[in-house]
């Protein structure tokens, strides 16, 4: 008789997850996503290897997709940073979508009212207005949470939907309506973002914010208060940290960063220079939810979020070739992103547990 001993699996709680482990978990989950998506590609009659080669050669080709890859990637980075700050204080900011809309409204309002201004003044003003509008929207949810104890997940999601219709109100048949149906008027030329090294200057702005944020959260006194509140609200109360104040602050900061992305998105890509149709701006805004996933994958480390955001941007841009170049069905590109988000979420398990094989005695 041969006995096959089935090893008993046991999960072990991980107390501290190192950055290296987090990276290997992400790589593993990406590998699974690529394998799963290969199944869909083969079902559609495409060669997966060929498809992946096409995706990345397009996304990182200087003449083709690179500038869009960077642009979309840094857009996602804005959203990720907007998620990370409140999460450090234990708050779920899923309102990046709404804050991005409000930032769009702020930036466009400035550009439409003062189109003759010199770009050197107009662009900073647009950024400032976007940040202020976004900060207001974030602070609104922060206030409701901090002062009135309203669950921030639900309020931010509701505010997202309200902001969607607000943009709709302004663009579709509203005061900002353009000549083309249901898009806004084009931005004045003075508002277009200067391009540095193939990418709008706001990309460097967001990298700068990511670095500053890392230092701010790690070394500053307020950063310390934020982290204490996130780790233990009871301890925070004990040492005299005002939870409502920090709550409003982190949500406003997050909102401001998401608000900046309103300018980055529409003024940084020559394909836009206006607010497109509602389906199109909604599709862009849905990308902000990647902030949540990337933020968690990176263990809320804002510097680690930079390469991962750009990577997601490359998949976003590169997988459009599946539809355009390889003539595969529409929607396959968004499916790929959906699969990646699901495997990332499933592999969150390994952020908390490792599997040990337990020998039966």
């Amino acid at each position, binding site marked *: 008789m041969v006995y096959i001993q089935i090893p008993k699996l046991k999960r072990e709680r991980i107390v501290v997850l190192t950055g290296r482990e987090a990276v290997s978990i992400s790589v593993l989950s990406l590998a699974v996503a690529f394998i799963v998506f290969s199944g*869909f590609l083969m079902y559609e009659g495409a060669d997966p290897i060929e498809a992946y080669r096409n995706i990345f050669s397009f996304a990182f080709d200087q003449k083709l997709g690179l500038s869009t890859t960077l642009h979309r990637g840094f857009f996602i980075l804005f959203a990720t940073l907007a998620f990370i700050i409140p999460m450090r204080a234990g708050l*779920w900011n*899923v309102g990046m979508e709404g804050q991005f809309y409000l930032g769009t409204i702020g930036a466009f309002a400035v550009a439409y009212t003062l189109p003759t201004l010199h770009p050197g003044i107009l662009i900073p003003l647009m950024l400032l207005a976007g940040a202020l509008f976004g900060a207001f929207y974030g602070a609104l949810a922060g206030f*409701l949470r901090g002062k*009135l*104890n*309203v*669950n921030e*997940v*639900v*309020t931010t*999601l*509701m*505010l997202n*939907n*309200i902001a969607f*219709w*607000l943009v*709709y*109100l302004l663009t*579709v048949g*509203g005061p900002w309506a353009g000549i083309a149906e249901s898009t806004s008027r084009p931005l004045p030329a003075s508002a277009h973002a200067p391009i540095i090294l193939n990418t709008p200057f706001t990309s460097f702005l967001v990298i700068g914010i990511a670095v500053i944020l890392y230092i701010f959260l790690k070394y500053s006194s307020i950063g310390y208060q934020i982290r204490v509140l996130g780790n233990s609200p009871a301890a925070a109360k004990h040492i005299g940290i005002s939870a409502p104040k920090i709550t409003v602050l982190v949500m406003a900061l997050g909102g401001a960063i998401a608000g900046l992305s309103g300018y980055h998105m529409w003024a940084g890509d020559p394909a836009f220079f206006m607010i497109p149709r509602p*389906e199109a701006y909604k599709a862009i805004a*849905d990308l902000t*939810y*990647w902030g*949540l*996933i990337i933020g*968690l994958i990176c263990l809320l480390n804002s510097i680690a979020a930079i390469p991962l955001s750009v990577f997601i941007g490359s998949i976003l841009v590169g997988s459009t070739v599946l539809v355009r170049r390889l003539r595969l*069905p*529409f*929607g*396959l590109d*968004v*499916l*790929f*992103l*959906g*699969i990646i*988000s*699901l495997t*990332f*979420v*499933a592999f*969150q*398990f390994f952020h*908390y*547990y490792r599997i040990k094989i337990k020998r039966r005695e």
Partner: protein
Amino acid sequence: MWPFIIRSLEVATILLLAAIGELLTQRSGVLNVGIEGLMLLGAASGFLTAMIWGLIPGYLAGLLIGALFGLLHAILSITLRVNQVVSGMGVWLFAMGFVTYWADRYSGPLPPWVTSIRVYGLSPIFFLAIITVVVIWFILSKTHLGLKIRSTGENPFAAEVSGVKVMRIRYICTITGGALAGLAGAFLSLTYLGIWSHLPTKGLGWIAFALVMFSLWRPFILLGGALLFGFVWQFAISPETIYAGIPAPLPILRMLPFIITIILLIIISSERFRRKWWLARPEALGVPYIKE
């Protein structure tokens, strides 16, 4: 007037089915944030199935895919103990991508031979939703099973000690909740809309999610809330059927359900209600159960 009432009752049906499922899930201590995604999946599979086999298989397909992804959420959040908000969000993001890929190429109306059965203009699914509410109320508050479910949501450790299979109860509730959300989605695409357009749920799932919070986890308050929001939602879409001279532009009206949700949230979070709300809230909601 009657067509308007029917339409708003249809919206109420969608909300009710999705929300009563979520209520059951939450009562067992599992938070499913992904109902918007489950509804999308239900809507797509219902629509595609109905195009081939007709209405009833369409509803069943919605129910089935909802259950399947409810199971996925259960595996992720109960067995793998992934944060429940993250897991729900992941299911939702996946659903957006998958549904776009799967169903958008069939954009357009249902074939004319697929028509919803109606009694005085009302779909039988409306009555089914009401019956579901009554049944779930009965199970939760009058039966032994309901006691098990509630104790799982309140204090899983005590429940386990007294012989309740916590994991099994949570799995059953999450799968049932998912199935109901899937059915709600199928009803949305097959009966309410009758047409496929890009991502049709438009935030209804989130309203259903918020409804569960307002209802203090009680089925009959949920019923009232769903009827109210069904009315508001439909009013925002076609205000002219009530009163032709509404001065507000359409987009402002479309914000209305979301604004009302926030106001209601503020009210139930106020000092006076919070006590009650915290008492009603399943104690172990959102906390993974770790067997010692």
